[in-house]
């Protein structure tokens, strides 16, 4: 029951925030990825930084359970899958989470994205043995590793640097990049009024 409530509250909050920051608006995803409006990128960078600082800071103060960390394995398929996801993300303007939120917020094209997603996931379930046999799912760099060794965690690291300190430093770096990034990198014919009309 407690698990159910936590899922409801945290999941609900995540969905609401994705809607409010515009991550489930394909026009804003497109404008981030064609480099004409980086506000969403700044939001995401700040969020990663804030999350990192709070988590590693909390760990250092003994307030956050290191055991809650869950590090995914690194293998060549991560890069390959990332490339595929990136292409689809740019074309459709949705990723798995934002597609769900967009459909719930009333976007009909997101229902087609979800239908395609269910079929794509099913296709992977069927073709998984082929990938497994290809060796592209074999771990690289140690597999489930962090950049620095996090005290008390079950995960290995690619360096001997203290992982919590490094996490804190990188968190601050993400925040700094969020502030330093301009709101657009590419000049186009757009005007600010157009930006407002999109929402």
């Amino acid at each position: 029951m407690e698990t159910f409530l936590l899922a409801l509250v945290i999941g609900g909050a995540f969905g609401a925030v994705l809607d409010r920051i515009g991550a489930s608006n394909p026009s804003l995803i497109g404008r981030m990825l064609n480099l004409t409006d980086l506000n969403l990128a700044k939001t995401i960078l700040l969020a990663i930084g804030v999350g990192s600082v709070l988590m590693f800071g909390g760990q250092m103060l003994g307030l956050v359970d290191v055991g809650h960390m869950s590090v995914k394995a690194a293998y060549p398929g991560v890069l390959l899958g990332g490339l595929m996801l990136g292409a689809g993300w740019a074309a459709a303007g949705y990723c798995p989470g934002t597609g769900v939120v967009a459909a719930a917020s009333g976007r009909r094209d997101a229902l087609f994205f979800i239908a395609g997603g269910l079929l794509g996931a099913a296709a992977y379930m069927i073709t998984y043995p082929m990938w497994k046999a290809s060796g592209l799912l074999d771990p690289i760099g140690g597999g489930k590793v962090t950049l620095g060794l996090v005290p008390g965690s079950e995960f290995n690291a690619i360096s001997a640097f203290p992982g919590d300190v490094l996490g804190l430093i990188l968190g601050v770096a993400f925040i700094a990049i969020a502030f330093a990034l301009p709101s657009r990198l590419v000049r186009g014919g757009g005007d600010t009024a157009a930006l407002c009309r999109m929402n």
Partner: protein
Amino acid sequence: MPLDWKTGGLLLGAVFFAAVLLVKPIGVSTQFVILDGILADAVNADLVVQIDEGYASSNAYLNKSDGKYARSVANPLNYSFVFVLAMALGGFVSARMRGGIKQVDKTVPALWRANFGSGSAKRYAVAFLGGFIVLYGARLAGGCTSGHMMSGMMQTALSGYLFTIGAFAAAIPVALTMYKREA
């Protein structure tokens, strides 16, 4: 209007932190597999079976890691699946509270209209194909924008950086090519 990036970033960061503080890092794309499994198991009840040590499946992917996914398919009311359903609920309520999405944007988003016109068939087709490669890619990578990019880099996971490099290396050229005109 979306939230200012400072407010939005703080809120989004707080949610990612709350998740890892209280339960575990956020992830979404696995649940597409779980829903597929639930649907397929409803048609073919032999897909997921209970065994002495838990659950097993005739599908090698559902059966991997000691039937971890098979267990979730058999028990849909688990944390991760309810989490994604709750995301939909949160998105629905939030969109309602700010007045909803403009009717014209519901079928064809503004940036798409500026570049490809307002016909819905082409937009739906690309959304469908995009969904296919996004989820195929996410499952190949073992995570998506939430699990790899955000949760992963937040934890300084090597895999998170690997994924993010791949995702942007493809996403930026595709967006620059497809969306030349601004809305």
